[in-house]
């Protein structure tokens, strides 16, 4: 277990370092941010002073060395646009994104697994066709389009839900949550649904395929012969088996939901990290872009690790060992 942990940690650090270098150089190559940041009215003198203030006068390798040095101390630089530490900026926005992603995740599991299981148990029924066709639709419809349609229907036409933004929040342990207020929940429904539809379809299909496969296996027949109730067979034995691929995919998808909820956040003006990333790319705010990606990579590494641990709980045959990682 310890060897596994250390190995994972080393791998993660390597990925973070490689990624930070790539992004740093990549964003540098995009252009000089000063042309976007500075007021067009500024003269040469002010322009030069601003370049010095932001440290853009130094050659690339010096800038990178400074970045590395402070990164080791946990400081990923100061935002060019906001003048505050990039990490603070991102952490400020993180609760909004996490909240959205978790609600979307719960929605997608809540819709996906029952739907897939149901379709798998009744393969000849009309509802199976409906679920399977619906799921194809669910992951072929582009995210932004779905979001806009939901806004048009529920916000503009029916006027029952707000078109965007985060709504009222309540502070719990210093973190602002909108889950706890009615207004916050109303703001959360549409973006979470938009984000959840694709994953729900994916999970439904996985659960469907898993159920079909598992039902034919020896242990199910054995359980039936043993006289276990159908509810127990499906609810415990089948469900547990089909969960392994579902957990893998859900884990990976959770990462991508948190890291790249960009489109949904933009459509719904949701004040999360994805929105911050888009704004920062547009304004070439390099420290924020780099810090964001570093944080996301770390998050992926952690999620993968958690997924590995959950495997061992679901399937005792899987062991965490140095070799397997």
């Amino acid at each position, binding site marked *: 277990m310890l060897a596994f942990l250390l190995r994972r940690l080393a791998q993660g650090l390597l990925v973070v370092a490689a990624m930070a270098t790539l992004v740093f150089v990549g964003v540098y190559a995009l252009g000089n941010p000063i042309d976007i940041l500075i007021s067009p009215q500024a003269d040469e003198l002010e322009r030069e002073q601003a370049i010095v*203030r932001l440290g853009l006068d130094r050659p690339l390798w010096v800038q990178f060395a400074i970045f590395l040095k402070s990164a080791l101390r946990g400081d990923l630089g100061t935002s060019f646009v906001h003048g505050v530490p990039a990490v603070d900026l991102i952490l400020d926005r993180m609760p909004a994104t996490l909240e959205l992603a978790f609600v979307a995740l719960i929605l997608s599991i809540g819709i996906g697994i029952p739907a897939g299981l149901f379709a798998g148990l009744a393969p000849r029924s009309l509802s199976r066709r409906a679920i399977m066709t619906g799921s194809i639709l669910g992951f072929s419809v582009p995210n932004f389009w779905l979001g806009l349609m939901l806004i048009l229907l529920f916000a503009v036409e029916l006027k029952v839900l707000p078109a965007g933004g985060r709504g009222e929040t309540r502070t719990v342990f210093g973190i602002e949550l909108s889950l706890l207020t009615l207004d916050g929940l109303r703001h959360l429904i549409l973006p979470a649904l938009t984000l959840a539809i694709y994953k729900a379809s994916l999970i439904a299909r996985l659960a469907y395929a898993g159920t079909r496969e598992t039902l034919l296996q020896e242990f199910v027949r054995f359980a039936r012969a043993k006289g276990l109730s159908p509810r127990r067979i499906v609810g415990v034995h089948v469900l547990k088996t089909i969960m392994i691929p579902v957990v893998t995919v859900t884990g990976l998808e959770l990462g991508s939901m948190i890291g790249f909820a960009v489109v949904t956040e*933009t459509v719904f003006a949701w004040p999360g990290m994805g929105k911050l990333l888009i704004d920062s790319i547009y304004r070439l705010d390099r420290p924020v872009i780099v810090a964001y990606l570093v944080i996301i990579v770390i998050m992926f590494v952690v999620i993968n690790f958690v997924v590995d641990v959950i495997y061992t709980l679901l399937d005792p045959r899987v062991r965490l060992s140095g070799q397997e990682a």
Partner: protein
Amino acid sequence: MRMIKQIALAALAASFVASANGQELKSQELKIGLSAEPSAMDPHFHNLTPNNSLLKHIFERLTDHDENQLVKPGLAASWHTIDDSTWEFKLRPGVKFTDGADFTANDVIYSFCRAPRVENSPSSFAIYSRSITDMTAPDPLTLIMRTAGPYPLLPTEVSTIAILSAKANGAGQVTFDRQECKGVGVYPKTEAFNAGQATVGTGPYKLVRFSKGDRIILERNDGYWGEKPPWQRVIFRPITSAGPRVAALLAGDVDLIENVPNQDLERIKANPNYKVVQGLSARVIYLHFDYIDDAPPGVADAGSKNPFRDKRVREAISKAIDRDAIVARIMGGVALPAAELLPPQMFGANRDAKPAKADPEGAKKLLAEAGYPNGFTLVLATPNDRYVNDAQIAQAVAQMLARIGLKVSVDAMTSSQFFAKRTKRDFGFWLAGWISDTGDMSAQLKPLAATPDRDKGWGTTNPGGYSNREVDALLEKALGTIDDTKRAALLAQASRIAMADYGVLPLHFEMTTWAMRKELAYTPRVDQNTQATMVNRAR
């Protein structure tokens, strides 16, 4: 399971009821959808329109602008020159900061000391305080400013620097010094403004909360010296994507939005619950040339010389362009064809200047006279996400130029690329836009048409190096003339000469649009700012 269902249904029903209540315009609260987010609540941090526009609610300046950007009194009730380089400002008595302290000349000196010295500022206000050599306060409500020579723009430029409270930020009696002011203590950091401790101003509103990316909440300052603003509470929400911004208005999330995309205008106008207000802005869209290189980037088949140095070629290009058609077809009528770099009603513009009419035949003749009967090849560079329909305008210009035999290809790119490349002088011919903070003709001619001069700060947006001695001389004279009428006349003359020389080709002025509930009214501003204080209930 059944119980969960019931709870869910109940919650849904409750949300219906709650939303039905939310539809009515609460009489004392105004919600505004912004198209760009301010980067900080520190008024000296970032000299950029979204910041300046919002922070005007909280902080005031010595002078202010009306909707046509003409200077009017702000915290200074009046001002006059004592001699050519000394100005006396009489400050408004009885003004209080939101923390209860009196506003005095010491606060002004403090603010002018801090403005150019903000840590990490990506674009500072130093350019507007550079002309000031000394500031003194003979009494708490009198302020003397000295400049190196005659500097007529001082009353305009002081309209950009927000006045902070010296006392609230821990400063004592401040002595001005261009190098390092004395008695200022430790300047507050930008974070202190974002968090709200340092956001102590004299404006009509005070900051309640700045939640980045989400909302900015302002509350009426009941101790405000001026006219009481119409709204108790104002909530600004940055919704940077145009579609969602319109949706937020139509869904009733916000009461007013700025920068309505042209394609949605008809739809909003057709809805009886909303209305659209349009106003001319001071932003001019123009074409500019590279005069420096013998072979400008992108130009081919033009022989060994730079065709743009020939006035006939520039005139031909101007004549080939049908400005009315661009405004009518590409801008959907929401723009005004331009004859100069500043709209006619503003300071220093020629009121009688008429935009050129398209004359392709005349343009062809001019090209032939200049030695290009078969035209030549050139590239028109343009940003594609900065100005209203920028890339489409460039396409239209290219087609119009094709009619007179010029082979133009359009190179459209994102603005961060565009501006970096323009500074590096990678373009031979480009389309861009310009709007100034100060709104007089000198603020258009000095950066765009004056000969680049690093020390004077001229020609900063003239990377192609257009140079006209007559224009320079008139501008120089105007910038040393304190008398407003005389200065306006000199600037108008300089502009006439630059336009007759086709040094820069103005295309049109953008219009700014606001859309709102029909119960509201807004007075459009040429500086494109959205001010809650100017939103009223329609009568």
